[in-house]
């Protein structure tokens, strides 16, 4: 089966600093893949590279087999890849509704087709309807994260990249947000979820990749990988593939 999204020997740099060393990952239709690793392992850099936010070689990222590495971010959105960025990056001068409207307007402009509409999003996160007129700055962290996810979904993605969506949130809120992920996957959207919480990452994904210092050190089915294997791959005591 051809992967929806894959990277091949992906290299990425921040100036003189090399952040990724030949990363290979695959994502299939409707699949959820978790990316775990310590701070600085290169997880967010990997998502940024896929999304066109960092310059990478054209053949290093394939979308449905088509080389798309280094494609401009807005073009990646047009091709069906959306990101929920780390730190949410909401448009702070706008209301909830206007934040979502940006995505709706752009999706309409690009002729993007998909099943995500405002009412459907409101079913997924009812609080967004209640808080539609509220400035996003005055929302709680969890509510802001829901806006960020909603905004990405309204781009009608076939691939959704979620970067640390649990960061800084209370456990109850994290559970609420992660409870929405299966419904998103049910639409056929494939997902890459960057997560620091290994337990959460395992339960929320079909497969996982563990990264360390810009390299993939472990990959396999989330349910089959043991804590010991993850521990070794996470901290660098040894590499393993299940």
């Amino acid at each position, binding site marked *: 089966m051809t992967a929806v999204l894959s990277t091949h020997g992906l290299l990425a740099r921040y100036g003189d600093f090399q952040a990724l060393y030949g990363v290979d990952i695959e994502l299939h239709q409707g699949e959820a893949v978790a990316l775990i690793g310590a701070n600085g392992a290169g997880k967010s850099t990997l998502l940024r590279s896929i999304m066109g936010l960092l310059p990478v070689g054209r053949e290093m990222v394939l979308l449905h087999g088509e080389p798309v590495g280094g494609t401009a*971010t807005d073009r990646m*959105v047009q091709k069906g890849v959306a990101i929920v960025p780390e730190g949410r*990056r909401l*448009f702070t001068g706008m209301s909830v509704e206007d934040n979502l409207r*940006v995505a709706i307007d752009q999706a309409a402009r690009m002729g993007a087709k998909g099943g995500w509409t405002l009412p459907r999003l409101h079913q997924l996160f009812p609080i967004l309807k209640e808080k*539609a007129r509220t400035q996003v700055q005055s929302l709680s962290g969890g509510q802001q994260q829901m806006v960020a996810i909603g905004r*990405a979904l309204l*781009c009608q993605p076939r691939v959704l990249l979620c970067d640390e969506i649990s960061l800084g949130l209370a456990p109850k809120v994290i559970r609420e947000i992660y409870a929405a992920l299966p419904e998103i996957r049910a639409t056929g959207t494939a997902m890459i979820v960057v997560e620091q919480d290994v337990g959460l990452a395992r339960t929320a994904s079909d497969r996982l990749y563990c990264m360390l210092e810009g390299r993939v050190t472990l990959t396999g089915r989330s349910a089959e990988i043991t804590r010991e294997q993850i521990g070794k791959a996470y901290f660098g005591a040894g590499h393993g593939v299940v």
Partner: protein
Amino acid sequence: MSAIPYAATEVPEVLVQRQTRSGRIAMTLAVLAMIGVAAMPWWASTGTIRSVLVLCCYIAVAQMWNLLAGYAGLVSVGQHAFMGAAGYALFVLAQTYGINPFVAVFLSLLVPTALAVPIYLLLHRLDGPYFSIGTWVVAEVFRLTASNLPLVNSGAGMSLRVMKDYSAFERNVAMSLLCAGMLLVTLGGSYWLLRSRFGLALIAMRDNPVAAASQGVNVVKLRFLIYVASAVGCGLAGAIYFMAQLRITPGSAFDPMWANVAIFIVMVGGIGSIEGVLIGSLIFFIADRWFGEYGATYFVVLGLMTLMVALYARTGIWGLISKRWDAPWFPIRRKLVDPKH
């Protein structure tokens, strides 16, 4: 139009309201002011027309800088390059080639348009302060080129002697109409842009360009279009200003004072808002008229004022006002209302 159906298939019970009472009052006053400017020859002296023309140029140039810096995040300190380029183009077309000067005003806009494209392609790879320095360097290159170009009489400059063919009244009528048109294009055009679909994308880009790109906003293209539009707006102000001056030299055409004025107006008035530009322009205009005679001291006071605003009130005077009273003059926010109430 006070309310429009908002995505009726999506949220049938909600309406979007974008006009407010304060907006309607301000719009009425703006239309009256525009008519007043256009009708100046019938109620104002030539001196007053000259003063209003300068004020209109301040507003236009500042609003163009506001679009650039306040929405596109491009801090240019060289927009006077386009004012001078259009000014010179007008003089060459009217004086050297004998084209009607009032037609030449519009033809001269082709020059800043044509120049803005390659300049942006050259500069857009530069980030933050490097971009700013690049724009300043471009303006200096323009000044040096004009100083050495025989076509524009080199450093000696040019005079617009063809204006003698028109009576003072005819000139006043033309200047007044051009001023009204300039306000309509720069302020009205900006307001229309911000209320359009592009407006939300522009505001998103101002808030967070990376996130805006991640929502599909073509930040690169939008910035390019804003840069070119701003160059044309500054060019229009330059053509009208130098037509009124009847003389142009490399020093006056590419005077960095215009960049300073635009930055002062937008910073003090309030960046990212049309209201701020109007407030800042009036403050600068009045300060320039009343305190200009104090020379260096006056500039020190203006500089200190900008510094204080940058340190303690980054949203400018309009930011302070709008924090206290939610009464925008040019509302661009979408307000969701329940039609049942």
